[in-house]
């Protein structure tokens, strides 16, 4: 399972965050029969390369989120951010907070646009709008 850690500006903090996350996630154990593989990529690289199953947008700007939303439209790619505002705006599918308590927010509009659906049990345990 390919997980892209995407950033907009190659000179910005997003790239550092993405690379940190990719490095820290190396060697993560198999999860439920899946072997996650993380890699830091720019949005430009995503535009021209193979689209992964999941894209985590690090340190996102609204313009980056808009660009990513356009890239994944209808392609079944889950987009994740830490910024709930980008999800409330319907740009990205999911916002995740891990501390102090894991909280997950999903935009039904962005979900539909991206062509993503979730397992029913999971849907019942998260916040949707």
């Amino acid at each position, binding site marked *: 399972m390919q997980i892209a850690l995407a950033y907009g500006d190659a000179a910005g903090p997003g790239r550092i965050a993405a690379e940190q996350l990719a490095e820290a996630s190396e060697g993560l154990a198999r999860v*439920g029969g899946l072997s996650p593989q993380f890699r830091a990529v720019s949005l430009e690289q995503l535009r021209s390369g193979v689209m992964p199953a999941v894209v985590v947008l690090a340190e996102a700007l609204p313009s980056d989120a808009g660009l990513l939303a356009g890239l994944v439209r209808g392609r079944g790619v*889950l987009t994740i951010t830490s910024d709930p505002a980008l999800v409330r705006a319907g740009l990205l599918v999911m916002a995740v907070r891990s501390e*102090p308590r894991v909280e997950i927010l999903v935009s039904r509009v962005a979900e539909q646009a991206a062509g993503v659906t979730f397992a029913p*049990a999971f849907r019942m345990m998260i916040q949707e709008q």
Partner: protein
Amino acid sequence: MSRHAEQPVTSRPVRRAGRIAAVLCLMLPAAAAAQGVDYGALEALFDEPATTSATGKPQRASDVPVDMEIITAEQIRRSGAHDIPAVLARYTSLDVHQYNAHDFSVGVRGFTTPQVPRMLVLVNGRQVYLDHYAYTSWDSVPVQLSEIRQIEVVKGPNSALFGFNAASGVINIITFDAARDRMSTGILRAGTGRYREASGMTSAPIGDGGGIRVSAGLRGEDAWRRGFTDFEVQELDARRGPTRAQAAAEGVFRLAPGLRGSVDASYSRAIGGDMLDYGQFWREDKRIWSLRGRMLADTAFGFVEAQVYHNALKATYAATLHPTDSALTVADLSSTVKLSAAHTVRPLLQLRQASMSVIPGTEIRYRVLGLGGMWDWKLAEPLELTTSLRYDHLWLGAKGYDDPAYPYGDRDYDRSFGEPSWNIGLVWRATPWDTVRLSGGRGISLPSLSDYGWRDSYPAFGYQDTGTPTLAPTVVESAEAGYTRRVDSIDGRLGLSAFAQRYRGFSSGLSTVTFAPPLVPLDTYTPYNLGTAHIVGLEASAEGRTAGGLSLGAKYRLSAVSSELAPSSLDPKRASPRHLVSVRAGWANGPLELDLFGRYSTLVRGYRVNGVDEATLVEVKDYASLAVRAGYRLTETLTVALEGENMLHGRQQQGIGAQAARRIYLSLRADF
């Protein structure tokens, strides 16, 4: 998402974020090889166990609108216990009364008599509670501890979800998932009291969404030595060394995209001297088997679950002429649907049929139709209201009961009645650390098939027994308030809850003579309703861990009882202690693990039958007990452990049964 969710990602540990992203892949149906609740993935995602035992809807443990405790597989392994009730005693403030080396009764917040009827116990949603005598025979539950993912304990009535008998609580034992969890475990254990055990399990996912799980266990030991009456030893074979044999298997199949089916079966045989509800040990030989089929279908909005199962029991008692045959068939259909971001509903339909025969040519039976629903309403992000309502209607019947020696005949059994049950719970997550819960409920506990239709006669001893067809069910009404605070610095939590409960209609069981000659030929014992009792109390808990590998936990429960009960030698009023304390401390460093479990209980009382029918009120004073485990991991797969229970005394009176014996065990466990 609450206002606290606006914190940036950079403040959280990046590795944890990576793991969350990885687990989220499993929540995409394209990646999900099977449907339903993926307990392992959801626990990894939310950093806490997931459960459906509170409302039927998948929920995080911290979000449920009931007072719930969940014991994990790791806690079970570290407990050093060999029985599910012993695990419960070490991690919860439940009433866990042990009468013999293998014989337990588990209740909630009070009134825990032997064979307590108001706690419903299930394995993966299949009832293992026995309708014939309305209790759970813990040594007959066909599950090995090593195959349990988690034990979910609901404290308080939950009949609105589970139907009759979830009157004061529910224990749902969740095993590892054959379609998702690949693991095998074998255990050899030997100890004092001629204890010997061999058990094992294997779970193997196969193909795309399928899998098998197989488990088996054999055990034998000596009964506890002291505390039996001469009559019990000589006439009722009650000090026989308890033995058990169990086997279970499950196959899971992916029938179509979004459709999963499974079949499971189990068999157990348990023999030993068990304490009956009226205070006498009898040797029982119980053979129980089960067969179940399940289907689960994912839909765009939720999932539909259906199951049909059949449980059958044959029990032989030391001094009865005929074996008891009992059977239960249950069909469930439910649909859990998230209608919108704020509303989830779960309509359900259940059909049950239970029967029992204690004398050839006789049969007592009932059929139950249950209809209900759950509605979960997210009023605002931190505020959630859950309401469940259910109605069960029972049709009772019997044949072969027209015997002039007894006061009731077939026509007396031709009756029906209905009972509503409900639960309501409001959860307010005031902050990410603080949760407040208000809840209430009404639960129903049916009279057992024995209460309705037991029949036997002992002319040599001058008495006979018969059930009472007009016996009313026990109704439990409850209100409670709870507060929980997460303490991140110790990865722990503090909890405080207060509760008030009213019980109406306890059954006396076959404990008291109600008809006498010349009305009937012999003194006749029949069950009757005892009256009303109240409990008010509180529970407090604290748990956490330190960076040095030390984990600590403490639980306290107060139950203050008042009652207006009719006289009976089955008196539940003082069956449970007023104060109960459970503490634990564990430490792990490299391959070494040390765990201590203490329990303190104040006075309990109960009747013991000395000879044929002479009952004496027994008072058991305060006691403290200690259990220990020291484990050492020899290799990646092998762990050796020294385990001890009742370590403070060689023999100790802990309840109205036999004296608890100190026992030491050595176990070798292989995980591969």
